[in-house]
């Protein structure tokens, strides 16, 4: 909700390192994804948490040479089940087929393409930044507040921050922190669900 209103407002320090652009993941010779028809799709898979189930899901994605942007796995409300959120870039046609192929996996109970639905999507990131200067620390903490992030660990040299939100928000937060020197980033990848009663 606050994703749109909170902008990274920190001033850039001298000697900034901007994040390197993410190289495109290429699939040479891909027949069914004409250039320009691809978009990011969010696919939710509910699978029985059995031996090999995850292998098969990943196997289908590998064979399709899916351009993976996120793969988050965790529990859901049913015991013995896993909820997997896949974010990937592909054409509509290719994703339709991928969804059907995922549905064929014996351990998969449900597959949903959330792309066209009204969804809530969030990810969590842990970010470790340099803070060997108390002036820096104050600025970082101020910045964190603007993004609704929390400080989860403090050492002499570092501050570790936890931020939750859309991928865009996490990206912006990372951009704002670049100037302090980011030591390590851990992002969960997107988890998503349909708004309201689906």
């Amino acid at each position, binding site marked *: 909700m606050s994703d749109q209103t909170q902008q990274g407002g920190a001033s850039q320090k001298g000697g900034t390192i901007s994040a390197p652009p993410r190289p495109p993941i290429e699939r040479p010779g891909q027949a069914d994804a004409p250039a320009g028809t691809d978009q990011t799709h969010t696919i939710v898979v509910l699978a029985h948490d059995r*031996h*090999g189930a995850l*292998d*098969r899901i990943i*196997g289908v994605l590998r*064979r399709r040479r899916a351009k993976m942007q996120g793969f988050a796995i965790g529990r859901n409300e049913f015991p013995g089940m896993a909820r997997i959120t896949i974010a990937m870039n592909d054409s509509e*046609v290719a994703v*339709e*087929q991928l969804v*059907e*192929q995922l*549905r*064929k996996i*014996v351990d998969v*109970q449900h597959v949903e393409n959330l792309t066209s639905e009204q969804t809530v999507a969030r990810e969590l990131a842990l970010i470790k930044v340099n803070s060997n200067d108390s002036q820096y620390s104050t600025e970082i903490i101020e910045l964190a507040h603007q993004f609704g992030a929390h400080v989860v660990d403090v050492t002499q040299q570092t501050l570790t921050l936890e931020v939750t939100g859309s991928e865009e928000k996490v990206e912006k937060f990372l951009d704002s922190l670049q100037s302090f020197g980011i030591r390590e980033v851990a992002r969960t990848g997107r988890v998503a669900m349909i708004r309201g009663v689906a």
Partner: protein
Amino acid sequence: MYVAATIKQKPDGATIYQAHRSTEGIEARELTGSQILCEALMREGVEFIYGYPGGAIMPFYDALTSYPALHHILVRHEQAAAHAADGYARATGKVGVCVATSGPGATNLVTGLATAFMDSTPIVAITGQVARPFIGRDAFQETDILGVTQPITKHNFLVQRVEDLADIVHEAFKLARGGRPGPVVIDVPKDVQFNTTQYRASTSISSIERFRSTRAPHPSAEAIARAAELIKGAQRPLIMSGHGVILANAYAELHAFAEKTNVPVITTLLGLSAFPETHPLALGMPGMHGPAHVNRAIGESDLIIGVGLRFDDRVTGKASEFAPHARFIHIDIDPSEMHKVKRAAVPIVADAKEALARLMEVVEEGDNSTWINEVRRWEAENSERSESIQRNQEYPDPTSILEAIRAETKDEAIIVTDVGQHQMWTARHYTWTRPNSHITSGGLGTMGFALPAAMGVKMGIPDATVWVVAGDGGIQMNIQELATLKQEGITVKVAIMNNGYLGMVRQWQHFFHNGNYSETPITGPDYIKLADAYGLTGMRVTKREDVEAAVRKAMNTEGTVLIDFMIESEANVYPMVAPGSAITKMIEESPDHE
């Protein structure tokens, strides 16, 4: 509690094995994993197990001797076990079973599993695995066979507790044959085979019902109505029938549907024999080696009714130019086949038998005689041309061999082909009339398939005369199975079309690689001496005029017979479509190389 298998000798020497089901014991008994495996296989009605023992599967083999109704066939290479189980499954519609040990035994099954996967045939493969404490520690003969077979099986199981074993076996059978059939692997660690548990024959397996892959969805009334409307409005309709018609046993439904709507029928390679080629509506095979009039008809068609096929690239050629004027009604049991290659105007996810029966209820009687006459005119033009290319009077030519087999078996043989030129010649020129009389590796194109598969076919249909037609390349890939045929007393007749080349590759080199015959000339053994060495009968035919007599002699000779037909060395399969080009662009004669 168990009676040994009843073995009946038929007058022609064929043996019939009759497996006896175990009495359904309701009382729980303490059994080992190996015994439970056998009990569960008995409950599934398994007659034959094709396999090869080894360290990690020895407890199972130990138990097997107490279950004589489970007839085990000792193959000479595990690949043959998988192909034999596949052949049995294709011929009978039942689940074929193969067994191998861990490591190399299991990996040798891989080609056979991939073959079954591509052609959607139901087999269950049981592999031994190293004992649980050793898994993942690079133990002797350990392979992660679940990982290896994951992309080429419908499902696979590692049995982690002996208590799960019986359920897993029943689930595996249900998965293999349900929905779109396919291979399933059960990996059983050696210690699980030794462990004991209470076994009750009346195991509930209802939980499996939720698996959508075992279900055949019913066609929606709306889709059926829309399909009927398209059929009514079509001027140049075609039915394309594939393996799904055979798997669904939908011959009668296809026949009735085609006749009522008066729509001509094309059969894909794996759909051959699903519709009699002697029928006035039968057109033949499409695609890379299909006759020109069939591909031309597809090019002109305004409606393709695809039944149980997946529009493989050997059928479609360049997909964007395949049937460019047609709309598609696509009937297939697998929803992931819909729109995969061609967008269907009416996708019908259903079993072919049910979908055709439902369509029959709503379609109107049709008359497509103008369209059919047009296609027949193209056929007549082309056959004059191809007749002059095909026939060679000197050598035993493929057509004469096939005609002789058809005549001598009174058109009642089951023909099992390998992969290559002979496969295409047989597909094209045999004139298929009996349902499911043609068995071949279509999707994977597995050389070495025919001989071991024929073993399974013959055991599944013991009354049938089974002919293997193979090339001199493919036959050498699993030639060791002659020993299995001999040991088991299984009779198949083998026609080798011997041209001293890996013929299809040579043909491609001729057409697409400037005649550079890189590594395609191949020698072979003296097949007469080879057959003799295996205790079988061998013959050689070098002249066209001796073909019929040799086939007759083979039919009258007891046991397995090999005939080495020395065919013309550089004959090509015509017509041919270059890979990746439109199927209407057919190559009908040889290019000139200097």
